[in-house]
């Protein structure tokens, strides 16, 4: 028996390998480096590996290869763009994550116990969060470039498992945070099971787990269509769970609300990019010829997701829950890009994901700043009059909200316009009409928050905006700058995306 050693092209896989190496070094630092230098060492390793990976992504942007890891991953333009977007979002969020005010110093201690108090008093800080973030990022980088079902499933779990833990590490309201972790974990595992079951049926249909093989079987059309339909449906359910589309959204408001705010921002932005990346690859390349089996289903999902997200967000009294429902609505808008199934749809989706992700991290960065004596204040009523007390913070938040709403001259407008026109080109007129209408509904509740901040009298209840630390400031400034730049000068990024946004099979 002859074994052929696999050939890996390390340069093409280097972004993932760098992040994984950084994560492993982080674990070693956790074990061997003294407490005093640990935070700075961890932050430098995390930031260094993220930046290095981003540089590497930029260097390999013109390469395409299906054989980078013996057919398990495919390196192509969209994959590179998704990886770049995830890394930029991760770099912005790592500053926010580094602001240790948000995390408990001893996750294993019981809430309210002496042990917890001692850990807090001794100035212990939680540094495990950095390796966990890097592990999650490595899964996210792999997810949109995976080109067989095994890699796709493993990447899904590698990105999810650290996030489940990170959801439970909040410093304030620890019980709620642990509850968020439990809900995220149980529903996430539930959805992975659906995903895996669907993969089994796709394998049964095609007789192979590679995307190329499944694509060939779909074109050939000799297999059993019932098995194909079951496979598509279950895999789609698993992916729709991850992006939080209705009716698979139940976890997202609770998890968004309970998780530590920096983690919420990172998870909301980066997971969406990764999950939509994988979804776009699967449905644009592998299952494009089976569009009659999934497009009608996706249209219904997109329509109810957009309407539900926008309508329910109106009645929210908690800023994090409101942003959660807004992210559900955005998942609906992004599904329009999947439905479009043309090159314009792909370009628009990539642009939208990047613009939305950056604005999300920035918005959650601002949520961490509004506090009272017991921690963050996320009750919207207590945000009243914020614009008078701290005009800069309120203006920045207002700007992010306008970007979410898609007001012209913000990045959100360009994204929405591009994604809806791509869907319209492909003939999905009904979805586009619902999309535009629900954007209008969504604009209402974003603007209501702005009115609340600037034109309502403040209540005197000890809510204040803390002076942001330099790290949080960096997060907010960078995301604000990118959001403004993308709104005013969208064409450089659009032109950059255009030649790259071609999936290879």
């Amino acid at each position: 028996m002859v074994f052929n050693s696999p050939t890996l092209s390390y340069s093409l896989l280097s972004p993932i390998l760098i992040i994984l190496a950084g994560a492993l070094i982080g674990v070693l630092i956790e074990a061997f480096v003294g407490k005093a230098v640990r935070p700075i060492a961890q932050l430098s390793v995390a930031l260094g590996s993220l930046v290095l990976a981003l540089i590497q992504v930029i260097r390999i942007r013109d390469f395409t290869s299906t054989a980078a890891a013996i057919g398990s991953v495919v390196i192509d333009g969209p994959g590179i763009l998704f990886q770049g977007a995830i890394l930029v979002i991760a770099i912005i969020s790592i500053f926010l994550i580094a602001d240790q005010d948000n995390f408990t110093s001893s996750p294993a201690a019981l809430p309210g116990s002496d042990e917890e108090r001692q850990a807090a008093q001794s100035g212990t800080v939680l540094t495990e969060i950095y390796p966990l973030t890097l592990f999650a990022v490595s899964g996210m980088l792999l997810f949109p470039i995976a080109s067989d079902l095994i890699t796709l499933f493993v990447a899904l779990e590698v990105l999810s498992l650290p996030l489940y833990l990170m959801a439970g590490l909040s410093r304030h309201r620890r019980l709620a945070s642990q509850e968020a972790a439990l809900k995220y974990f149980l529903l996430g595992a539930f959805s992975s099971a659906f995903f895996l079951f669907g993969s089994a049926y796709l394998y049964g249909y095609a007789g192979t787990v590679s995307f190329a093989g499944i694509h060939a079987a779909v074109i050939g059309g000799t297999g059993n269509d019932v098995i194909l339909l079951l496979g598509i449906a279950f895999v789609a359910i698993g992916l729709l769970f991850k992006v939080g589309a209705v009716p698979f959204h139940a976890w997202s408001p609770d998890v968004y609300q309970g998780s530590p705010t920096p983690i919420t921002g990172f998870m909301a932005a980066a997971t969406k990019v990764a999950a939509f990346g994988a979804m776009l690859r699967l449905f644009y390349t592998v299952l494009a010829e089976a569009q009659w089996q999934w497009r009608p289903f996706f249209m219904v999902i997109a329509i109810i997701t957009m309407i539900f997200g926008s309508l329910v967000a109106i009645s929210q009294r908690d800023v994090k829950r409101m942003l959660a429902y807004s992210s559900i609505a955005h998942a609906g808008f992004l599904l329009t890009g999947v439905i479009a199934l043309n090159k314009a749809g792909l370009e628009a989706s990539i642009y939208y994901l990047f613009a939305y992700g950056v604005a999300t991290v920035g918005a959650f960065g601002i949520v961490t700043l509004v506090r009272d004596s017991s921690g963050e204040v996320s009750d919207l009523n207590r945000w009243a009059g914020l614009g008078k007390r701290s005009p800069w913070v309120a203006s920045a938040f207002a700007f992010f909200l306008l970007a979410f709403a898609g007001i012209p001259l913000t990045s959100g407008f360009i994204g929405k316009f591009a994604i809806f026109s791509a869907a319209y080109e492909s003939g999905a007129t009904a979805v586009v009409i619902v999309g535009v209408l629900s954007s209008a509904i969504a604009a209402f509740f974003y603007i209501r928050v702005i009115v609340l901040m600037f034109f309502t009298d403040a209540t005197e209840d000890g809510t204040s905006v803390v002076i942001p630390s330099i790290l949080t400031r960096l997060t907010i400034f960078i995301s604000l700058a990118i959001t403004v730049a993308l709104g005013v000068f969208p064409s450089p990024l659009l032109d950059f995306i255009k030649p790259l946004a071609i999936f290879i099979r």
Partner: protein
Amino acid sequence: MNSANYLYLSALLFTIGAVGVVIRRNAIVVFMCVELMLNAANLTFVTFSRINGNLDGQIVAFFTMVVAACEVVVGLAIIVTIYRSRRSASVDDANLLKR
């Protein structure tokens, strides 16, 4: 024996698991139901592997076992933490959010 019967069995196991996740209240039991679903998917993979006459499906089953083991580690850590702070592993008692 007809291989299709294994597909029916695995679909049944998957359904039992899914229903269990929805109706059971104890986090541990819910989690076990998720594991049942994963194993049902494994059985499907192995059955299709036999029907298709190649080994890909069996390889996936090994990957799934490893991934499921990782999930157990993370999941039990979360459930134990919840139990220690609340003295209850019921998913209904966890209702602080939504307010």
